[in-house]
């Protein structure tokens, strides 16, 4: 059996009275891209900080490459590249100093690769971190995260607050890590179209709980969207077999259901309705059906 890179077993975490993680179990491995989806405050960053050993699991356990990341920080962190949401880099350093500093922690650091990336991003390595724009900080952060060619690249909300050009650089770095080096990438995002593009495996987190976990393909197979029409106006949403969420009014309703089309259609027919249109559901529709609202709209809450 191959060693699982990430093994989280029933981890819970509270901050005061707020439950940040509630019995979360999670696994990741293989050369794949893992997407962690949820609104701000859903628990994504808290989970990631457990993986890095920045938080100790108060209940449950975390194993990274078979090791406890709190007890074996050096061994674990050497194999990980990490871009934090805050891009908290030491502001007094120059870019080249940061590269040498980061190199000190990573025996496999590839300085030629680091400089090649800095050139691609057209970054002046003599500049101080303090002087860099938000986008440039993200670029420097990604170079520091990938230049030791880590087995696992962890990116927390990598494209939040970035302009399209830098966002593209970050996505490119993710693609290269998988395509060139066969690495595993784990990223969190509240942008569902980005997750739909980049993730092979999707985990949806809501209020500290994993609400859905599987390959993108299996998740999409297990959901469909149907437009249905009834002969007469309905005041209440119809109760249809396999329906996860129903919305509409009068004669027209749209339903996200569990993907079992035949029983669904039969159930609609029993209610004297007709399926007018049926198609695969998007991740956004699936998320809303499972959680009640889109992750980006929940941000303000």
């Amino acid at each position, binding site marked *: 059996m191959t060693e699982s890179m990430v093994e989280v077993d029933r981890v819970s975490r509270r901050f005061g009275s707020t439950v940040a993680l509630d019995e979360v179990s999670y696994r990741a491995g293989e050369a794949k*891209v893992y997407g962690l989806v949820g609104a701000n405050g859903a628990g994504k960053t808290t989970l990631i900080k457990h993986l890095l050993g920045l938080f100790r699991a108060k209940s449950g356990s975390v194993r990274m490459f078979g090791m406890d990341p709190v007890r074996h920080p050096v061994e674990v962190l050497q194999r990980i590249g990490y871009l934090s949401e805050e891009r908290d880099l030491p502001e007094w350093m120059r870019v080249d100093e940061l590269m040498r500093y980061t190199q000190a922690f990573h025996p496999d650091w590839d300085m030629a690769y680091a400089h090649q990336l800095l050139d691609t991003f057209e970054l002046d390595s003599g500049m101080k971190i303090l002087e860099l724009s938000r986008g440039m900080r993200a670029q420097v952060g990604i170079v520091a995260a990938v230049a030791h060619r880590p087995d696992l690249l962890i990116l927390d909300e990598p494209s939040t607050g970035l302009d399209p050009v830098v966002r593209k650089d970050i996505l490119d770095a993710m693609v290269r890590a998988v*395509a*060139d080096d066969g690495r595993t990438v784990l990223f969190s995002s509240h942008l569902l*179209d980005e997750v739909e593009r980049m993730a*092979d495996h999707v985990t949806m987190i809501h209020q500290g709980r994993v609400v859905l976990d599987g390959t993108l393909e299996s998740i999409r197979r297990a959901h469909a969207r149907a437009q249905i029409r009834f002969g007469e106006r309905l005041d209440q949403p119809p109760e249809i077999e396999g329906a996860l969420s129903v919305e509409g009014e009068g004669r027209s309703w749209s339903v996200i259901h569990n993907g079992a089309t035949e029983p669904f259609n039969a159930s609609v027919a029993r209610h004297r309705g007709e399926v007018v249109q049926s198609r695969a559901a*998007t991740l956004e529709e699936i998320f809303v059906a499972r959680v009640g609202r889109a992750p980006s709209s929940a941000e303000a809450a």
Partner: protein
Amino acid sequence: MNITINPSDGVPIYRQIANQIRYMVASSLLEPGEEIPSVRGLALRLKVTPNTVVKAYHELESAGVLEKRPGAGTYVKAGPTPLAKQERDRIIEQRIDGLLAEGHQLGFTADELLEAFRRRQEAIDRESKEEKGDREHG
């Protein structure tokens, strides 16, 4: 190879890629023996996980549309494939369906449309013959 994807239209991205390549092969925008972009290249261009491109190419390989040459990339398979025929059928059927719907709107029966089809074909044949004649005599 100009592929565009839309992550929010409900069709899985690997299928969007595969469908567009199929269409390009069927309509000769991609020719037999032509090399298509590497997995890495297309993933970088489209900003998708490389595994999605791998999956699209795999599907097209098992359908006989593409072939992988060891150590040399992926190519459009030489010779007509059964799938290209299917795809041609699908494309022409869509056009016929549109024509039938429009004909119906304008009050033509299917038989009248068939008759119109033959008349147009004859007219086109006649024109091309005359053109040929013109060239030979001119």
